[in-house]
């Protein structure tokens, strides 16, 4: 795992500055402390690290390539653009990195049942996959609305042997799927591990998920230094909960690299239909963490919207809130329309169909590339592939 020199967060209480923490009912406090203690021991355990590496290599297909996007580079006529190819991971997105790590934690703790929340279904599929591999019972909470929108992933999870629990409370999307998963976890704490899908939730999840995802940045650093003999100048990643972004940013946090997170502006920041949490949200407490949150004046959590179900979340990882306040990472947002255009452009230019989530990061290139010099290097984290989004993309060519 990555160890940085000076940046040493979260602190022992799980705080990133004022963000993070464990804002959950008392029933969960002791199990979270046990999880933290177990995980802290495990992360320096050689046999655990070897098993993790073996699974990452032989099961998931790591390291994923760093691809020079020659046509995209030509198109913008500025710096050189590289793509970190998380779309080539087993199951089609970076989500598997975390699922593999946490299934080993759960197994080690003697849990025999796994639960998870999912929005677009990518995390659900990753969890169902590792549960199949490790023969653990698996229940995936998914909003009624998302089940309708993401049928191919629902079918994949079923084929992998997972039980899908339809969530009909609240907004019937990712936020309420997570609420129901937390309620299930409180009720079945003895035998159940909750695999949270992003760098969100109570401590130690934001730290643990970051650690498992930071393999993205670690590989990127080695690859770009081998290819170009130096670090990149800029790294761009999309941010919903923020796990792929933290994953690629983390090993570069202390370096002189411009880190850029791109949120979903949905139909536009001037409308309610967006989920640009770091751009429009304010300090809040939600899903066990203190972080930026999209909420109304009474502190009720807002219904959010993005064309990309994976970014459709009113909260964001607490470390991102800290990195924003400390100006270590800059956060911007792009609209549905810009993301769709970017997906189409990348597909035609490079022969790579990106996930809608990742297309948000690609879309930001048009803002940043004109300001780059030819000797600059820009890396975009291509967090997932677009197979799951063909229902949405088909409107682009009819």
């Amino acid at each position, binding site marked *: 795992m990555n160890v940085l020199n000076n940046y040493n967060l979260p602190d022992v*209480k799980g705080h990133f500055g*004022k963000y993070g*923490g*464990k*804002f*959950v*009912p*008392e*029933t*969960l*406090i*002791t*199990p979270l402390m046990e999880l933290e203690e177990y995980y802290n021991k495990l992360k320096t355990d050689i046999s655990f690290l070897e098993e993790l590496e073996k699974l990452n290599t032989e099961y998931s297909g790591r390291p994923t390539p760093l691809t020079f996007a020659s046509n995209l580079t030509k198109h913008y006529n500025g710096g050189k653009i590289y793509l970190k190819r998380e779309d080539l991971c087993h199951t089609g997105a970076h989500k598997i990195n975390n699922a593999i790590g946490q299934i080993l934690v759960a197994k080690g703790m003697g849990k025999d049942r796994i639960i998870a929340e999912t929005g677009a279904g990518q995390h659900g599929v990753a969890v169902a996959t590792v549960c199949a591999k490790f023969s653990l019972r698996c229940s995936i909470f998914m909003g009624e609305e998302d089940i309708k929108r993401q049928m191919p992933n629902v079918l994949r999870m079923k084929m992998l042997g997972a039980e899908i629990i339809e969530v009909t*409370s*609240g907004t019937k999307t990712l*936020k*309420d799927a997570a*609420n129901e998963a*937390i*309620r299930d976890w*409180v*009720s*079945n*704490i*003895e035998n159940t591990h909750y695999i949270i899908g992003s760098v969100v939730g109570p401590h130690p999840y934001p730290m643990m998920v970051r650690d498992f995802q930071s393999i993205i940045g670690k590989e990127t650093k080695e690859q770009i230094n081998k290819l170009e003999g130096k670090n990149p100048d800029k790294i761009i990643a999309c941010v919903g909960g923020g796990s792929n972004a933290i994953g690629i940013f983390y090993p570069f946090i202390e370096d002189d690299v411009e880190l850029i997170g791109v949120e979903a502006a949905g139909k536009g920041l001037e409308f309610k239909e967006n989920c640009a949490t770091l751009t429009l949200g304010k*300090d*809040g*407490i*939600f*899903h*066990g963490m203190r972080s930026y*949150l999209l*909420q109304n*004046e*009474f*502190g*009720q*959590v807002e219904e959010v919207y993005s064309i990309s179900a994976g970014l459709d979340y009113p909260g964001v990882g607490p470390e991102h809130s800290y990195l924003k306040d400390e100006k270590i990472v800059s956060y911007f947002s792009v609209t549905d329309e810009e993301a769709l255009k970017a997906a189409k452009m990348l597909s035609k230019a490079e022969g790579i169909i990106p996930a809608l989530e990742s297309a948000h990061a690609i879309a930001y290139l048009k803002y940043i590339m004109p300001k780059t010099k030819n000797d600059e290097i820009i890396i975009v984290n291509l967090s997932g592939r677009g197979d799951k989004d063909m229902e949405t993309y088909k409107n682009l060519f009819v």
Partner: protein
Amino acid sequence: MSIIKNKIKAINDKGDKVLSVFLTSGFPNKINFTELALNIFNAGADILEIGIPFSDPIADGSVIQKSSQLALKKGINISLTFDYVQEIRKFSTKPIILMGYANPILAYGIERFAKDSFKSGVNGLIIPDIPVNEQKVFYKNHFNNLDIISLVAPTTPVNRIKMIDGESSGFVYCVSINGITGINSDKEINENYLETIKNTITKNKTLVGFGISSPNDAKKVLPFCDGIIVGSAIIKSLFKEKSPYQKTLNLVRELKNSLFNIN
């Protein structure tokens, strides 16, 4: 000494146990909520807990979730809840506790919330998603006039129960089972846990809640605690009837009747 603790002590000293009843603010009817609250007091509730509705109540089961959603739809918020407390206070001196999740309180402003709570006549506060570890940072020093009631659960180890007893004021809220509010009692309450509560919590009075819906449920926990908290069963009953809520008030009477002469 705390008004809440005094009240519990006075009741226990008579040989009775305490009944704390939970209502969702402004539910089922925004207009006559004050009247309902007073009737609940008159029917035998010793303490009233008023829940501030929140969009994402992770500690609550479907019954309280639904009541919260309805309350939110009708525009219930913290300011209106303070208005209710002020109205109730005109006619009753019994303890009133606000129960709510952290975020609406954070949005209202911690200091402002503390001041307005005290001003309107609130005696204590329960925020289930602010566990003791986060309390100092969250509450700062604004809550000296209010009891901060902390929770323990079956997963809480003995040392931590002791620590929570030390931090809590008013009473300690003992969650009966690992779960959410309003769960039917297919899960048996662990007697060892009740025994531990009884022996470990010495500074505070103890009230047991979650899954207590009838005199029969109460009977199982009464030997180990100073009183009970009933929420979902009341809300469920309120969903089924209209004002003057006779069945719900009867349930409160039945519950209170089962708490006399226990010691």
